[in-house]
């Protein structure tokens, strides 16, 4: 049950409280620091642990990924699709590495599971697209927002 609180006579005479309220809003109007961030020009600093757009880390322009399939295994949204293959300079590499970004829930488990430090979630958070985007390997290999 809701506790019934009997306000004092001064509180019940609302005008004093209203004037105090008006003073608070006026103070905010005139003096308070404005918290708005002018977005495209100003940007908030995100934590390095922020989980944004994915990329595959490369070292000397060779992808770290060995197509071990741990990220599709751990992915709760099942949005990662990898086809493994073999090439001259690398025993196992992903021929196809696709992230269905619309299904992704940005939990970061792929990054956590990766034994090769290959799939990473960057600080990039502007990912709106005009069509249903599937990130291809070429796109993921661009070192956007490399966290090092």
């Amino acid at each position, binding site marked *: 049950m809701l506790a019934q609180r009997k306000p004092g006579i001064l509180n019940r005479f609302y005008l004093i409280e209203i004037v105090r309220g008006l003073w608070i809003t006026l103070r905010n109007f005139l003096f308070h620091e404005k918290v708005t961030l002018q977005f495209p020009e100003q940007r908030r600093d995100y934590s390095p642990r922020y989980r944004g757009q994915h990329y595959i880390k490369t070292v000397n322009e060779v992808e770290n990924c060995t*197509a*071990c*399939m741990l990220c599709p*295994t751990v992915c709760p949204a099942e949005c990662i699709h990898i086809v*493994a293959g*073999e090439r001259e300079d690398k025993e*196992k590499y992903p021929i196809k590495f696709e992230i269905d970004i619309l299904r992704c829930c940005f939990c970061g488990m792929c990054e956590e599971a990766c034994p090769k430090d290959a799939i990473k979630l960057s600080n990039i958070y502007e990912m709106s697209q005009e069509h249903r985007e599937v990130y291809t390997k070429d796109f993921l290999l661009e070192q956007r927002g490399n966290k090092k």
Partner: protein
Amino acid sequence: MPKCMIDGKEVEFTAGENLVKVAKRAGVEIPVFCYHPGLSVVAQCRMCYVEVEKMPKLQTACSTMATEGMVVKTNSENVKKGRAGTMEFLLLNHPLDCPICDKAGECDLQDNSYGYGSAYMRGSEERRTYVDVNMGPVIQKNMNRCIHCTRCIRFGDEIAGIHEMVAIKRGNDIDITTIDGKTLQTEYAGNYSDICPTGSLTLKDFRFKKRAWMLKKTTTVCEGCSKGCNMEIQHEGDVIYRCVPLENLDVNRYWMCDEGRFNYQHTQDPTRIIEPKVKAEGGWKTISWEDGILGIKEEIDGQKPTFLVGSDLTQEELTHIKEYIALQHPGATIQHFGTPGLTSTQQDGALDQILRMKSKTSNLNGAEKLGIAPLMNDTIKADTVVVMSAGRAKLPKINAKRVIAVGVYLEGDASQFDMILPGLAFSEKDGTIVNHQGIEQKLKRAVLPRGKCKSLSEVLMLLTNKKARVGANP
């Protein structure tokens, strides 16, 4: 029966049983690498250490036979220390490439390291590396991962009957390889991959296709020959990735031949006919099931066509066909075919000392038991012939006006046919087959039928019905 104590449990045993087997029966697992129940015991990996009372040192369980009143501890501090030490030695040179190793997920080394080893590596020396030899089309070798358990050498010696793998050099430089770097000759090469406790021998066919933990497993029977080896189809979605043998001491023990192992490939062949087709001018024309059923009815209704059934069909399908003929075409001839030049179980026999049989169809014995006559001379001359098979039976030469085929066929087989209705392969249906010993074994459906394939029973039912009402695919 003599008794012994393992970890405080009293277990009965027969004389000559080693401690690994006895402990397994008691529900105690002893980790092993070199020991394999189907191979001789060498006790060289030292993983199966156990403490036996009144013995001063740790004993290897695989080479220690149980004796009356023996008291064994598999979990004492001493044993744990011994196992951890062994694990550390084995991992000294083992590369940390589990992410790219096909064995990962079903690897004895991974499991035992996780269960009994240390999480940390004390050594800092560089690991040895090898240049690998080509082992032929079946097996991919990676000597870096080898822990010298010599299971492969013993398998070649004792089971495959061909001494092709050897250990050359000694100590740290040891190299397990083929003699003179030849490719593998045996017909049972796939087993090397199965018995290898690490990823040093893996299947080329399965290389990098899927990770082991992603596969679903269906227990079924091989349809490659009349042996009827028990096996497991490993698949994900509706794609089969590989088949591995299952233990059945009455039939195939632990092994399987390459022919049976890769037999699943024809069911996923892109040239497999998966839609009803009819021969038209200059090739094949795809038709609907209704048209196909009606077309066949037009051809055979009220007549006596010759029925040729493959001895690769299951008992259920063969029975259904017999009933159908008795009902719809009384008096029509029915003959089974399968392997050229092989008409009865009397002629069937072992092709080699191990598993493979002469009959290349799985249910020759069953067809004979159902009283279906064999097709002689591998040729047939008739007015109208209806061929039914599951894709394994070798087609005879057919000399007829109209040939109607039901079952699994590749485009290459289809040249003699006028009309084809696609059927189910062994991995897509349930059923019973009878092997050469007379053992009845079950086929189990692992994947959904491809395309518009329908079971033979459904086709026969549609042919029996007055109207051809065809439901959706299962």
